């Protein structure tokens, strides 16, 4: 049985070259345009703008500048599916299209998905979308086909600065802790790891080193599994059914004889 594999993304060394995005599109044969539409953001070098069914890698450009533009910094982050240990998409998928692989990654089988889109709303990170070419929900597979052939994912292979690191999760965590310590010693006290421990959805198999709050990177501060609401919602509904039944008994009991 292979070890759990994943990504550790060190955002501090990302230069925004988008080689990862291009490599991902090339390898996975993803369409360049969205159903024939080729749109530009118009206000940023980031024309990808979000992860979805045809963008499985997305380099985020976050501009933090003062009003007079004298002081500022760019935060760059190559975002991807988190391959959660407790994956919301996998939980809700009604067709069994979403599976956990032998590498502990989460993959959508395009030949099984029927495009119900339940997984899109269930994902705590908004990474899944419909690929108009297939009409199915799609996202990063962590290059499952390459992993089976003993290769590393296309994005990690293409990354020129080793911002995207691929390997066994245990090794990646050690690497991330070492880098975190290095940054803290250098005075970057804001540096922290996002999703590296089990408190967040059992652990993210794609975790990040950030130097600002998760919200700044467009990441949820407290992502949750969708099934947290299942029991209370079901319980309330059962109580509602009892209330309806009692109301009907009270309302329909005879008041002076039966109808014909």
């Amino acid at each position, binding site marked *: 049985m292979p070890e759990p594999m994943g990504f550790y993304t060190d955002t501090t060394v990302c230069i925004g070259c988008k080689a990862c995005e291009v490599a991902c599109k090339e390898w996975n044969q993803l369409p360049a345009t969205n159903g024939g539409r080729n749109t530009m953001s118009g206000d940023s070098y980031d024309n990808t703008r979000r992860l979805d069914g045809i963008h499985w890698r997305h380099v985020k450009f976050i501009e933090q500048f003062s009003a007079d533009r004298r002081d500022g910094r760019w935060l760059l982050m190559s975002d991807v599916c988190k391959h959660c240990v407790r994956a919301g998409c996998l939980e809700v998928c009604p067709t069994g299209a979403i599976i956990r692989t032998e590498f502990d990654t989460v993959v959508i089988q395009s030949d099984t998905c029927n495009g119900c889109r339940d997984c899109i709303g269930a994902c705590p990170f908004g990474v899944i979308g419909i690929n108009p070419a297939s009409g199915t929900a799609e996202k990063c597979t962590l290059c499952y086909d390459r992993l089976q052939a003993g290769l590393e994912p296309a994005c990690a292979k293409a990354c020129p600065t080793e911002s995207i690191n691929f390997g066994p999760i245990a090794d990646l965590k050690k690497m991330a802790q070492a880098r975190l310590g290095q940054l803290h010693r250098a005075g970057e006290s804001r540096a922290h790891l996002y999703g590296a421990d089990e408190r967040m959805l059992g652990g993210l198999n794609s975790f990040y080193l950030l130097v600002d709050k998760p919200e700044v990177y467009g990441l949820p501060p407290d*992502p949750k599994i969708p099934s947290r609401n299942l029991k209370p919602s079901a319980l309330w509904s059962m109580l509602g059914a009892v209330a309806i039944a009692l109301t009907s008994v009270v309302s329909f009991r005879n008041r002076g004889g039966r109808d014909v």
Partner: protein
Amino acid sequence: MSSTFFTASPEWRWAIVVYFFLGGLAGGSYFLATVLDMFGKDRRLVRFGYLVAFPLVCVSGLLLTLDLKRPERFWHMMIESHTWHPMLKTYSPMSSGAWALLAFGGFAFLSCIAVLGERGWLRWRAVRWLSPPTMVGWLIRVIGTLLGLYVAGYTGVLLSVTNRPIWADTTLLGVIFLISAASTSAALLIVFGSWAGVSGDSVHALERFDRRVLVLELVLIVAMIASLGRVAMVWLNGWGVGLALMLVGGIALPIVLQSRPPAGSVIGPVLVLVGGFVFRALIVFYSGRL
């Protein structure tokens, strides 16, 4: 900010809104038909409740299929396409709901057939077994009623078991959709009763029932908004005005109108039906905008 605001919309649109409404009507009508029958109310209302449930379930299934991006794969909800094993996840509301809808469709069909037999439009002997007082008849009604309530309520639970704003920020949508299904179904039966000339105790009983569940619905929607916490602030715009109008026009006003209705007035019940539909549209579409 709630973490639900960092997610993507499944972009469920009119087909889903209409399904939520019609599925609720199907389950609620079947439930009310059973209760009306148990209490010996007007047979025309009982028959209408059972008759209307089956076509509504059929339309529901069609809408759900058409909403899929790959409609030809609708059967993947039931059968795992690689192994051909039954596909059921009890912890996935969409999976369990698909099975419940299929099963409810079966029971609604049997009850529909039974009513057709009762009216003499079907002359098969076996049809007699499908209606009480036979044991089979009671079993069909009881199981069908439970499945109908499940179909009416699971849709709200499905929304809560996501990570989307509003939907996942409350656990009350399931019970609200269920109560709303009861109120809209009662309204539908009152409208039918008025059209068919049903008078007396049966319609009054339905009006009493509708008033009570409308009050419960109003309380639950207010509780739902309160349960959103800071997320409730997103309603401070035109969508919130729409919700307020729905609460007034689709719930509060019908409660008043049904307290002292002019004979044969269907204004109140029609407002309830419109309100139930508008509420589902607001919940589905507004979350998609956030």
